[in-house]
């Protein structure tokens, strides 16, 4: 043996360099563990928001994000929290950049945890592109205004608070109401006319029973390869929830802008997300603002909600439907309040509507879709849609007054017109607002039901609908005239 190199072998230079494959220096000077925070010394050159892997002495691994860098001291939030960790033997490796994920259609049909790791027994999700989960700020002039509806198959939403492609429309609820059933029904039924539709469902802080319900209800869509499920259960690491909506939005943005799908991102429950933000803020000893939430909660929520929309030169759209529960039904709660500033309307669920046996328990008079005019009407839904919706809401307001009056003086003492408004409301609640949790209604059927309810009113009261539409759509119109 001369030790001469094998002439057939490739030269060593052909291999990737260690930098190219991402070798990482590991740091062992862990100074402090505090709640979800880990303080590391001697961390030169580490940047803010860098992603890190934390190797434990016993062989386990956790993940972290850099929250603060002060000279060579870096503070990380450990996604799985620092419970059970002990100083000594911990090594931290930094990725050299914020958390990136591989994106692509490989996500469709997959079920992952809040950090994007598979829960379905499959291999890690791979894709041709790496994108940062924090997203790129989008030039505002490159945005296109939302247009065309997303039809949910739910009468109350499609007719009265139409969801529009690229809109952000939250569901405001109270603990104990069926907001999850509603969000799941929307996720399983929603479509955009004639276009490919995909759903990304980010569950945060849900119980296992709720997760099982969501999985079962969305099975059909998942099996069809139209759904991405990210599940962070109530007993999963709280801090992980900070990443869950960001991963969901990153996956959605790629599906929408690179692959041309219309994507609906459902984020439930944003109150759990905000609690995770509060936990980190408290551990960092920041000055708390309202109800202990940090002062930057508004801008943090905006970085999520503002990632929806449509972009010039790209076919797809990202529509965001956050679900949030208001503790004690308090609509001034910071999460609901700040969400309301950013989003374009709201769907409000009310316990008294549920008490009257109506599902979905939407409080029609408190709900609003600010972009409805861009997504409904002639050429988008149906020519009479906007007039009918305006008339229905006006009539609901009058019916509420009539019902309040009836409680005082009795129905018999009401005028004929007021009694017709009460009849209208009864008809509307029974045949229009109330809908089965698995029932899909086409837009045509929804509007026909709306007209059937309006027919309970004297024609003279239908002042917001043009006579052309009255002649065309009002049931029994010809018999009356």
């Amino acid at each position, binding site marked *: 043996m001369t030790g001469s190199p094998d002439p057939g072998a490739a030269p060593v230079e052909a291999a990737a360099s260690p930098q190219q494959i991402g070798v990482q220096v590991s740091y062992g000077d862990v100074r402090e563990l505090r709640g979800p925070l880990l303080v590391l010394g001697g961390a030169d050159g580490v940047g803010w928001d860098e992603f890190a892997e934390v190797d434990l002495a016993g062989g386990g691994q956790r993940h972290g994000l850099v929250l603060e860098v002060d000279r060579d001291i870096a503070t990380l939030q450990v996604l799985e929290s620092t419970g059970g960790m002990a100083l000594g033997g911990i090594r931290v490796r930094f990725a050299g950049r914020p958390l990136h994920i591989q994106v692509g259609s490989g996500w469709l049909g997959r079920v992952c945890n809040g950090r994007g790791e598979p829960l379905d*027994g499959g*291999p890690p999700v791979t894709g041709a592109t790496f994108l940062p989960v924090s997203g790129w700020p989008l030039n505002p002039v490159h945005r296109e205004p939302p247009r065309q509806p997303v039809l949910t198959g739910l009468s109350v939403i499609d007719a009265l608070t139409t969801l529009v492609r690229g809109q952000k429309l939250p569901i405001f609820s109270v603990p104990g109401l069926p907001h999850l059933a509603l969000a799941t029904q929307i996720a399983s039924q929603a479509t955009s006319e004639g276009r490919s539709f995909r759903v990304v469902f980010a569950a945060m802080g849900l119980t296992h029973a709720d997760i099982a319900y969501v999985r*079962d209800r969305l099975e059909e869509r998942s099996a069809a390869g139209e759904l991405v499920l990210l599940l962070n259960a109530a007993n999963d690491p709280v801090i992980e929830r900070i990443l869950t909506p960001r991963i969901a939005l990153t996956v959605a943005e790629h599906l929408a802008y690179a692959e041309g799908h219309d994507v609906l991102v459902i984020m439930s429950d944003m109150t759990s997300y905000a609690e995770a933000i509060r936990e980190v803020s408290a551990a960092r000893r920041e000055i708390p603002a309202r109800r202990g939430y940090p002062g930057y909660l508004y801008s943090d929520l905006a970085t999520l909600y503002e990632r929806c929309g449509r972009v010039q030169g790209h076919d797809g759209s990202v529509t965001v439907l956050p679900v949030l529960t208001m503790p004690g039904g308090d609509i001034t709660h910071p999460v609901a309040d700040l969400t309301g500033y950013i989003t374009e309307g709201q769907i409000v669920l009310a316990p008294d509507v549920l008490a009257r046996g109506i599902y979905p328990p939407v409080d029609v008079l408190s709900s609003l879709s600010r972009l409805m005019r861009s997504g409904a009407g002639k050429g988008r839904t149906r020519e009479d849609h906007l007039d009918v919706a305006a008339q229905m809401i006006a009539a609901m307001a009058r019916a509420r007054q009539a019902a309040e009056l009836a409680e005082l003086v009795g129905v018999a003492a009401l005028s004929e017109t007021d009694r017709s408004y009460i009849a209208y409301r009864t008809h509307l609640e029974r045949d229009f607002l109330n809908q089965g949790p698995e029932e899909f209604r086409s837009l045509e059927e929804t509007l026909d039901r709306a007209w059937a309810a309006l027919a309970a009113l004297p024609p003279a009261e239908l002042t917001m609908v043009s006579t052309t539409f009255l002649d065309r759509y009002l049931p029994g119109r010809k018999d009356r005239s």
Partner: protein
Amino acid sequence: MSGTAPVSAAALEPVRRTLREAAQREAADILEGAARQARELEDAARTEAAGILAAAAAEGEAAARAEAARRSARVRRQAHELVLAQQNALRQDLQRRLREAAVALRTDPRYPELRERLREQCRQVLGPAATVRESPEGGVVAETGTRSLDLSLPVLAALVFESAPEASSLWRR
């Protein structure tokens, strides 16, 4: 029987007859009314029963359809999970083989050159004061103060594996 005189009884006979006839007519009316009401009730009950039956049948049909859809979706989920599990098994197998191949590089004639390059790499990253030692599985591990750099062959193999997204075509269809 009656306390009236025979003359009075005869005189009252038409009254009795009229009263009896009126009572009989009334009884017949009541009987007829009851029969009619019974018929109506029966008809209403039949209609209601038919309605309930139809609603129950429709509800049952809808429930069965939903259950069938759920069951079919569940079966598809199980099938999908089987495929995913198989893909994962292939991936892990590939990872294991890559690791074995990397460790086997120790016997490659070019290994000493590679090890030297890795040593050099460690000094570049951690500085000239770094202590570099050979890893038992091949490659090197360097340390200086609280910082360390693991360039052992299995670690390098794992990093190559993870940094090549196109590798996923090997375990996916």
